[in-house]
């Protein structure tokens, strides 16, 4: 009883920092900590984990964050110099974070796909249309050029001809199906007039 109470308390506390745009589907069972804003049509599965430790996380529209996926704005290491500004993690639109991937990247553009078990660490900027293949990990500081795919056990790279198609069909499907089985966190932000669709 006690535990439930306290968890309820903390969730209400968290909700203060949690901004969910109308049309976003954020499952109740997702783990959200810290200052997080979630754009419209973004779907966050149960057990997805978004941790804004060091600073706020801003997630754009139409993203799919699957279960066990982790998006962290990680606390800087203690020996690192104190940052001048609060580090903000920005995630663009129509990205897919598949099961059990870890994204610590401070900036993710649009139409990226992190496949299952992919890992992207903090110093990496994902631009647009990148695919990080299953179980591939990127650790060194760099900016991944557009339409790059990282695949295979050796993390080979290739530039794709075209960016991956946005998962519109999957988004619509999840929007339809998830409400049948899960409770949602309610949106608490009014949609901005004139904002991007």
């Amino acid at each position, binding site marked *: 009883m006690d535990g439930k109470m306290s968890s309820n308390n903390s969730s209400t506390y968290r909700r203060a920092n949690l901004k969910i745009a109308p049309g976003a589907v954020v499952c109740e069972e997702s783990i959200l900590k810290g200052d997080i804003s979630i754009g419209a049509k973004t779907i966050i599965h149960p057990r997805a984990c978004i941790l804004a430790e060091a600073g706020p996380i801003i997630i754009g529209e139409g993203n799919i964050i699957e279960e066990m996926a982790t998006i962290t704005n990680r606390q800087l290491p203690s020996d690192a110099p104190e940052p001048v500004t609060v580090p903000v993690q920005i995630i663009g639109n129509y990205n897919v974070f598949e099961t059990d991937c870890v994204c610590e990247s401070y900036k993710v553009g649009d139409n990226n796909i992190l496949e299952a078990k992919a890992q992207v660490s903090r110093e990496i900027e994902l631009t647009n249309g990148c*695919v990080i*293949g299953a179980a591939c990990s990127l650790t060194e500081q760099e900016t991944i050029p557009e339409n*790059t*795919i990282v*695949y*295979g056990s050796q993390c*080979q*790279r*290739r*530039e*794709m*001809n*075209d960016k*991956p198609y946005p998962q519109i069909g999957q988004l619509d499907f999840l929007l339809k199906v998830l409400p049948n089985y899960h409770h949602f966190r309610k949106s608490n932000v009014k949609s901005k007039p004139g904002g991007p669709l």
Partner: protein
Amino acid sequence: MAQTFAGTQKHVPECEISRKNSDETDVLLSLVETASPRKEERSSDAYRRRFVVKVETDTQGSILDHLDVHSNVRSRGNRGEIMTSKDHPLVRPRVSVSRIDDFVVSSGITLSKLGAITIVSDGRTVPIREIWVELESIMTSGWRGRTVGISSEFSLIVSGIMLRSVVSSAASVDSCSLLSLPSIIVSVTEVISSVVMFSLSGRLVDSSGTFNVVMSSMKVVCSSRVAMVVICSFVVNLSSSSFLTVDSHYCPNCMENLPSSEVRLKKNKCSNCFDCPCCFQTLSTRAGLAPVRASALTEGEENKDVKATPKKVYYLFCSLCRWSSRDAGIPDQSVATGGWPEQENPHVTRINALIDYHKVLASIEKQQCERKKIHPKRSFMPATMYSFTSALVRKRIGRPMKPPMQSQSSAQPVPSVASEDVDELSSDIFTETVDITKITTLEQRLQHPEVQAEKINELRPQHRQFLVKRSQRCRVCEHNVSKSDLCPQSTKFKILLAAFYHIPEVKIVTCEPLRPGKSSELLLKFCNPTQHQTQITILPLDTSLSTSLTEEKDIKQEDTQLSESSNLLPSTVRQAPVTEDPKVIKVVSNADLMLPHSSLILPPRDDAAEYDDTNDNHNFQDDPKLVVWRKGNKAVIRLHVIPHDTNKDNEDPVIVGFVMQHGYVNTIAALEHKSPQKVDVKVKLYLTVGQLVGET
């Protein structure tokens, strides 16, 4: 001009006289002897054995008027039916054939001596150019669809006379025995003018002049944990010396199974499936909608109903690296199955020229081989055993089917010339930055050696390579030891005779820390996989394995991997398609083993006992010093290892060796011997028991 006289009588297969031109006559004469089977073999439904001597001479005259085949062998009773000239429609005049051979089928075949052959033509003795001795034994006895056969051949040239012997036998086994003649040594003992004396002496298991047939069935062995070890259960022979033959080709993606002739035409590649040129995974076909412009075009041209359903197009797509045929600029196809443009090999004319040239070379070489030497190995007797055609006879005795063609030296292609002229590098090679993502990797280039594209967008999908299913045969008796199911979808084996199912499994349980010169306790677990009780005795490493039943085995480390080596029978003359040579054991033991005085009895495997909790110890009178634990068909024994003092500073692991002797009940040989045959099999084992620990 060649005439063929097919024999009309039952046992006369054929006699052929062929005449090349007026002044040269090749006389081929086939003589057939049908030996009646021994008593126990008479009971089999059909039994037949044939012994053919063919003689070829160069005679001036056109008619062979005398042929003598004398026997200088003491005839052993009237076992064989001897064909004389009277029976023979062709060489009627004065051909006398006496009994050439006595051969008796026992457990093997005894071929001791043949006779002397004289050929007289036009009143003169003519030189014999070649003699073939061919022995075939056939046994058919209500067999059930299993044919086993063996053949072996060799030739000798002595004093310009070629003596060739082909020994082959094909047999089908049901309950009866005999089948193979592994090898024969032919030696020409004497050459006196036109009389050739020759003898055949067999050498197989021993060199006593008899053919001890090594037939049997054999078993092999294969399991995930035991290396390929072949066990031939008649002459129980444990070895990995088997040869591999390719059974079937199939595509691992679409599971299409093709005959090998077609596979060669298709260059071992599947025509339907493609590999990704980028990451070598199999490509899948994806359906997409045609780009708008293309559909607009079709709209204008075609019927209205096309407009209603947008046209579907197909492209190839790699699910791993997301390469697609659109990346390479290959136009989409309107049909899901194929029609993909083939990549042209830029060197195709040169390659074809070379292939043609080598075909010519091959045929020339083949002709020369056929003239001079060994027949290509016949693995099995053809079904046409009883009906020799003239072509077959020609082929069998090694004459070319047709007169040799003149070598076409004109077909020799222009040799390649090395050139020093290389195109200048463009100057921007030093200034342009290299974009490594646009350049193919070495692996990608070597995947398609004929093109070796440099730029990533020049990569084209490649046809998927076929895989093969292989079967394995014993080198000694040519029995299949492992044969997989022909159906590509099936992962089962038709025949799998793995040593794993016949030889006790040995596992290292624990070993105390090893110190030089000090005794450490070693616990070994033995498991009897067979349906028969077996007795395991540990013998010193230098025990002779030279019983008639010999084998060696080598165990490495705790994973009990049996690698092997073998003590093969001298198979001097045989040739196998792909033969793994017996591996030489180079393991040296560097520790002593205190051998137990008693032996260990293991009860047969009982699957039901696995579920039985009652601890049935079968009341074996175990030596408590030896046997530590026992359950079902498994037992743990205690041994003592003393590492040698010499290797104190050595980093090498401690290896201890011994000979494991175990009783083996040969149930397959029992088909021949009525009662199961029990043999003691000795196996050399080397155990890597661990590292020395420093002295404390």
